[in-house]
């Protein structure tokens, strides 16, 4: 940096911080190829930025102190959601064994490895709060202040977690063989009927988040949601669908919920034609 004048030092900073107006960038970038001192300064600033971010990144993953969570507890939303949240930092060996749909014993055996967060343990916390903590703000309904545009999960007034946006679209539209957007991060896997004869479908939000949503009168309500590095198991074969490798805990949830077999392609198409109504 010492070789640069003040003007260039400020320019390097603005450039690296993304604060340089486009017209200035157009003038600045060609200089990088010609002026090693300038290019070196840019490289050093980028390295500093990257180092700072990786130094502080672990703080984001640290367990949240209970006191902070209690502060944000929301009294009236406690009773509503019948959602079973599972945070699964499961050991790779256990979680990576893909399980056949019927192997609920084996799936259960894998359970102690996963930290299970049943709803009542959260006491008075709202569904959205927990979702936010587990998933970050990414998949929540975007707040205008956050400038987000991704939207997959919302929270109904009664506290139930509902599918929104891309996820709702996929649940409504995607049937076997006709996935609308193969590049979408949101994917739908198996379809089955639960004991109330409602149609339920497994979905994935990203490489680490998956769950089950069931069609109810007012939309797709999320009945099971899990998150964790190994929540999507089965990468090396065994029982899975192309779109959504299923974790042991998810398979177990399906087993507990389903009434009858999972639907085949024709069954999915027929159910879709009926608007997924029971």
């Amino acid at each position, binding site marked *: *940096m010492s070789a640069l004048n003040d003007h260039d*030092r*400020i320019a390097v*900073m*603005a450039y690296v*911080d*993304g*604060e340089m107006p486009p017209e200035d960038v157009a003038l600045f970038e060609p200089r990088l190829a010609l002026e090693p001192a300038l290019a070196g300064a840019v490289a*050093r*600033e980028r*390295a*500093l*930025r*990257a*180092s*700072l*971010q*990786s*130094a*502080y*990144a*672990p*703080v*984001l*993953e*640290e367990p*949240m*102190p209970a*006191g*902070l*969570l209690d*502060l*944000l507890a*929301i009294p009236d*939303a406690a009773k509503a959601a019948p959602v079973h949240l599972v945070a699964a930092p499961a050991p790779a060996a256990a979680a990576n064994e893909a399980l056949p749909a019927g192997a609920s014993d084996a799936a259960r055996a894998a359970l102690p490895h996963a930290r299970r967060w049943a709803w009542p343990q959260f006491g008075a916390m*709202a569904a*959205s*709060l927990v*979702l*936010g*903590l587990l998933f*970050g*703000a990414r998949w*929540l*309904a*975007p*707040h*205008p*202040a*956050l*400038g987000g545009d991704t939207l997959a999960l*919302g*929270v109904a007034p009664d506290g139930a977690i509902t599918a929104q946006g891309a996820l709702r679209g996929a649940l409504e539209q995607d049937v076997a063989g006709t996935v609308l957007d193969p590049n979408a991060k949101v994917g739908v896997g198996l379809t089955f009927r639960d004991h109330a004869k409602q149609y339920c479908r497994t979905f994935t939000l990203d490489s680490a988040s998956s769950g089950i949503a069931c069609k109810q009168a007012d939309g797709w309500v999320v009945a099971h949601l899990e998150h964790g590095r190994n929540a999507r198991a089965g990468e090396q074969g065994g029982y899975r669908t192309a779109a959504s490798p299923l974790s042991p805990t998810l398979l177990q949830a399906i087993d507990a919920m389903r009434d009858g077999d999972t639907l085949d392609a024709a069954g999915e198409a027929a159910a879709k034609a009926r608007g997924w109504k029971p």
Partner: protein
Amino acid sequence: MSQSPLALRAEIAALLPRLRRFARSVTRHREDADDLVQIAVERALKHLDHWQDGTRLDSWLFRIMKNAWIDEVRARGRRDEVLAPEEAGEHVGFSETGSRDIRLSIEKAMARLPEEQRMAVSLVLVEGLPYKEASEVLDIPIGTLTSRLARGRDALQAMLGDGDLTP
């Protein structure tokens, strides 16, 4: 989602990890950081009606936190300076994986920065706030922010040396 208190609380909850990260660099100390986040969230909840729709919630919370920290330091009467920077650096977040030496030296270097530079560096380089947002969080003009950023960066580069920055 509207800005009903419930939705706002959920958004604040979603921001907690970032609030803790900023607090960690501001206070340089794990327990102090969580205390600071606690104080800031309490204040935010008390004044939810002060948050203006259409402005960034994270900036608002960072600003509350900055003010809370200034109050705290004032109340402690310079107790802050009792902590030796070397010791302070030891308390900043660790990861089990990889380049721990580099991480420590960066955090030690951050801990040695004057507070006003440390906050500017943290908001822009770690939290990724635009200059305008960061200057509003710190209640300073953009020119002041950029000069703090420049001095903070130069000091960090000098402390770390070029070699340490390539993990």
